[in-house]
């Protein structure tokens, strides 16, 4: 029963809010260019319109092309189920941990790259080769940072790690967590195709990565791909909020009101992080492709430094 409620609440929150994050970021970017911009809820309208439209499928494509949107969307949703929005609603024994999270996201990404190659368009191949490079560069930093957190909390389960982080008070004052936060925050930009690594608004063939891979899709398939990307972005934001800005431990209420308050604070923090992401995106330029290894090296070293600090400080210190 408890896990049923968890799945219900978790899915409704994630699926409802995921397009909103994109809307907020786009709105702030529009303000920075002195435009009024599309409404915050534009992505909902886009998705519902795309759902009604016909899909055009190339004659030469195989089943991979047709199956990929469903695989990408469902892997994102499963990933969202692994990262609880509030530790109150998480069931005690949750299957899956952060290694599962990383591998599930990698599965979706693998099919996305395969489908981009499937239609044999030049842009697709280019996009998937770039995506392969970026993802292989950023994955080590996610794993090293999560392993460090796992070592500290003696568990690989994400809920356990969140509980442990919540009981440390303000994690961002701690030298280990500050490094890991910076590393994961850098990875967020690479994973969600945001500006220092990839430009979500461009269709210029020289620079696009994520857009190049979904260029051949239309109609319902395109909607699923975009929705999947938005959900994945919200998964990373949720991970950051619940790991580094925990609020569940300081809520004194119990029962249903505690859950509501926790979700309300979660929503406020989500909006704040979206605003911060938008501000960073406005204030940086896109790196050229061969500068991305520098950024990835920095992100990896940040997580490794956090890992080292954990040992330098002595494991029992945290």
């Amino acid at each position, binding site marked *: 029963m408890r896990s049923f409620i968890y799945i219900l609440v978790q899915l409704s929150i994630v699926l409802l809010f995921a397009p909103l994050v994109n809307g907020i970021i786009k709105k702030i970017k529009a303000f920075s260019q002195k435009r009024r911009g599309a409404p915050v809820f534009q992505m909902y309208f886009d998705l519902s319109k795309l759902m009604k439209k016909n899909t055009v499928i190339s004659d030469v494509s195989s089943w991979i092309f047709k199956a990929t949107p469903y695989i990408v969307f469902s892997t994102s949703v499963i990933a969202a189920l692994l990262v609880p929005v509030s530790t109150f609603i998480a069931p005690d024994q949750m299957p899956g941990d952060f290694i599962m999270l990383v591998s599930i996201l990698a599965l979706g990404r693998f099919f996305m790259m395969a489908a981009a190659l499937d239609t044999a368009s030049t842009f697709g191949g280019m996009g998937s080769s770039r995506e392969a490079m970026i993802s292989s560069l950023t994955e080590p930093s996610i794993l090293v940072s999560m392993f460090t957190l796992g070592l500290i909390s003696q568990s690989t389960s994400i809920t356990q790690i969140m509980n442990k982080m919540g009981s440390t008070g303000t994690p961002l004052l701690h030298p280990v967590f500050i490094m890991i936060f910076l590393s994961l925050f850098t990875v967020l930009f690479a994973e969600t195709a945001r500006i220092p690594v990839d430009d979500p608004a461009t269709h210029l063939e020289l620079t696009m990565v994520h857009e190049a891979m979904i260029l051949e899709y239309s109609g319902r398939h395109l909607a699923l791909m975009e929705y999947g990307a938005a959900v994945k972005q919200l998964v990373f934001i949720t991970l950051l909020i619940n790991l580094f800005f925990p609020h569940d431990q300081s809520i004194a209420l119990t029962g249903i009101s505690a859950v509501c308050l926790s979700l309300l604070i979660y929503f406020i923090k989500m909006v704040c992080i979206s605003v911060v992401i938008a501000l960073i995106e406005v204030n940086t330029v896109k790196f050229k492709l061969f500068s991305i*290894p520098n950024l990835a*090296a*920095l992100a990896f070293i940040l997580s490794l430094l956090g890992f*080292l600090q954990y040992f330098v400080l002595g494991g029992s210190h945290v």
Partner: protein
Amino acid sequence: MSELFNSLSILILLSSFILMANKRVKSYIKTFRFQSFLIAFAAGIIGVKSILEEGRFDVLLVCLVIIILKVIYIPNLLNKMQLNVEYKVEKDFILNIPILIMGCCAIVMFTYFSLSGTDIVSRGAINNQIVNSISLTLIGLFFMISRKKAIGQIIGFLEIENGLFITALYMTGGMPLIVDLGTFIDLLTAVMIMGVMVFRINEKFESINIDKLNNLKG
């Protein structure tokens, strides 16, 4: 309180990594300014603490000197220098950036393992601050040998000095005033002399790439 100092020391170490990842002279100067600001911040906190606890005001004075000298004056001087000897953007470093950053990380590990046997670190209370600040000094040395241009080397020199200062500050809680002021005056003189040298090299060879000094060999 020690949490804050731990975090500050790791942030200072982080700034040296960012410095290593920078590509242009302007961003070297910006990052150096940021690093000096962090060091001034640490000195300021220790200064306020020593006023409240022991009635000493010298650390706070040193903090002021750092802000005037390293956050404001020297970066401005370097910026001016850089404008005068402006050159085309060319490859300044010997290895590529990811390898340099890995090298920095190896330095941190080396420092940790070489210090872990000593008395200071095994006492435990301040170990990561000492490790971080001594690695800052060594990374400064590494920065100096990894950059070809003269301004990069000046920045490396300043970073070494930052590392020495922060090590002394963390270990002793404030060196005697006369020692600190003496170091700063040495530093200022060194930077000014190096500035003049940069001009001279630039005039003679139309570039401040020190590889060209090899032309002087017979």
